[in-house]
């Protein structure tokens, strides 16, 4: 497919596809209101408005000063900084060859909003590691206008290891949309750790699309923190295509006020001896709402593979709502596959216990949020990111607002976090009751 055909296909699919294409979830999805997308101009490829490098750099400086995180690349509205590493390439979408569009993992026909991002992304970020190479990168995406559409294509060659952190923030003053497609290809024996933090402000609709393929004995470990944005729609999948391939996906959601989150992730065992884990945890307060959809499928021939979908929800207020919908499709006999889901409000006895130890409701909520989400945060290897994400969570529990870049919290005491919730251990423990 040539670029012009690709573009026309993307625009066409955006216009004709329903918001939720899957028959399984057509009753459970969150609508993206018109106000977040009505201003998008499909006649021009340009993103909305002029580049605001000063505002973007100010935001970056704020994050660096408060969180101590330095970025190898900053992507903003009509702005991309010069990459600080030769492994990061910035490519014009219009100049990409036919093969690139043919091999894209997230095709426009797959999803209405993937089509939107495909249609509106001008610059593609490609990270390519050669055999045995090892790199760590931090990338910031910040929207200072009304729209920001980006794509990151990661290709990790045999035996290589890539650690990638993406910070998604926004300073949008009006209803805006921020979309990202992450496409990840992990070759044999290669590893990738992806940490994605969504900390957009309350004016933003967040569209997060991520797809990965993992070949033999490769590993893709992903952490997604959905904290910001008024509305979040995430669609992800990982295909384990090689024997002994592994993926471990940890998702956390913290919703306050009237935030809405729709998180759908598929894990697919398509090869023998593969291991796929999905652990999603959501804490909601006020009138926020979250739909957690995790689906595991084990394809015919994926013998001796294992798969586990684990969804947990905690409601801090009885006006918040979580729909937790784990699913599973198993086409092979010799496998271990299971799923679990549990959601509950805060137990009154627990609150009384915590308050008897001097904690007011906010302090008790902080501890409960730390405890509930902590096991998925502390799985992140980079301690700076653990502190940064925990600090944002703390600030949001206290102030409710999203998109804030707070000072690092002094209250965080990561001496220990209670039970280590290792996904593989959970799977084995859960499976023994079957």
């Amino acid at each position, binding site marked *: 497919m040539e670029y012009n055909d690709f573009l026309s296909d993307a625009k066409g699919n955006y216009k004709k596809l329903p918001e939720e294409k899957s028959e399984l979830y057509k009753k459970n999805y969150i609508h993206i209101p018109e106000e977040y997308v009505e201003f998008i101009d499909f006649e021009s490829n340009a993103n909305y408005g002029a580049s605001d490098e000063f505002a973007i750099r100010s935001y970056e400086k704020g994050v660096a000063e408060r969180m101590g995180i330095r970025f190898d690349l900053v992507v903003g509205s009509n702005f991309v900084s010069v990459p600080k590493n030769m492994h990061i390439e910035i490519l014009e979408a219009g100049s990409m060859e036919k093969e690139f569009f043919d091999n894209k993992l997230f095709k426009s026909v797959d999803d209405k909003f993937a089509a939107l991002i495909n249609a509106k992304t001008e610059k593609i970020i490609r990270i390519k590691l050669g055999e045995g190479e090892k790199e760590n990168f931090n990338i910031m995406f910040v929207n200072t206008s009304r729209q920001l559409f980006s794509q990151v294509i990661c290709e990790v060659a045999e035996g290589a290891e890539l650690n990638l952190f993406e910070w998604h923030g926004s300073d949008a003053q009006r209803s805006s949309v921020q979309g990202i497609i992450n496409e990840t290809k992990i070759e044999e024996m290669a590893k990738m750790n992806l940490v994605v933090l969504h900390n957009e402000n309350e004016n933003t609709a967040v569209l997060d699309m991520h797809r990965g393929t993992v070949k033999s004995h490769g590993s893709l470990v992903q952490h997604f923190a959905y904290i910001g944005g008024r509305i979040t729609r995430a669609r992800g999948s990982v295909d384990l295509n090689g024997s002994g391939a592994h993926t471990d996906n940890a998702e956390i959601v913290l919703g306050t006020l009237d935030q809405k989150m729709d998180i759908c992730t598929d894990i697919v065992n398509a090869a023998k001896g593969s291991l796929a884990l999905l652990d999603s945890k959501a804490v909601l307060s006020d009138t926020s709402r979250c739909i957690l959809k995790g689906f595991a499928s084990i394809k015919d021939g994926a013998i001796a593979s294992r798969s586990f979908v684990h969804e947990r929800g905690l409601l801090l207020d009885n006006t918040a709502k979580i729909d937790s919908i784990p699913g599973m499709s198993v086409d092979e006999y010799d496998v271990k596959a299971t799923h679990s889901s549990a959601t509950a409000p805060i137990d009154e006895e*627990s609150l009384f216990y915590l308050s008897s130890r*001097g904690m007011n409701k906010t302090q008790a909520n902080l*501890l409960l949020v730390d*405890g509930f989400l902590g096991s998925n945060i502390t799985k992140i290897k980079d301690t700076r990111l653990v502190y940064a994400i925990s600090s944002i969570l703390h600030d949001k529990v206290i102030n409710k607002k999203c998109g804030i870049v707070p000072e690092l919290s002094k209250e965080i005491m990561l001496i*220990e976090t*209670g039970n280590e919730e290792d996904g593989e251990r959970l799977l084995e423990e859960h499976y023994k009751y079957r």
Partner: protein
Amino acid sequence: MKRMVRDCLRSTTSIDDVDLVDSMILEIKNLHVCAEDKEIIKGIDLKIADGEFHVLMGPNGSGKTTLGKAIMGYPKLKVTQGDILVDGKSILELKTDERAKLGIFLQFQNPVEIDGIGFVNFINASHGAINGPTKDVKKFLSEIKERSQRLHMKDGIQKRSLNQGFSGGEKKKAEILQMGMLRPKFAILDEPDSGLDIDAIKVVAENVNEIAKENGTGLLVITHYSRILNYMKPQFVHIMSSGKIIAEGDSSIIKTLEEKGYEAFVNEG
């Protein structure tokens, strides 16, 4: 048998030497408490000064735990009459966390288990809420370690989630460890001996004595059995039945209790 001897006892014990004007006093006046419209506490008077050691005994269902929870401000209980005062000021309008910040500590009979909240993080958060943020983390951790060793707690228990998977005895020890770290002015210990083996009862009792002595804590120990009192020296013993205190006295009352059981007090009360 019913003897209102507290005031005269105070004049004969060493605690009496404490200047009560400068010390804190927890006072319960004619307290009536309902749970779901059923009256559980039916008019109780009790006065505990810091440094004093009171024991509350009574048969099952007499309202001992309810009294402890009412003092702590359990939201499902309603005080229908009377008052709870600290230093002459009513605390009825205070929330539970505000009462804890005043220095009141309740050791729960069945502490809740909360998955994911690390035990040390919990103590740190609690300590921070009551005494301000931990300034010296190293010292704080070493104190936890030292206190847990004194309580003969297993290594590694601090690394588990709050009370999760703890045995009955471990839970009780974990509560006493918290008491030690939080240094309360008044501690209500609700059956600190239940679920403990003979050796552990002694360890817990010794630790409670030590913590109370270190901080001048006023104690109200709720118990069914006198075994723990072999290692503790209460100054005041109160016997409760059907929501009322039916007998009071010094520790000699425990001997009578051992010989005749609660029945004797209930009948005479």
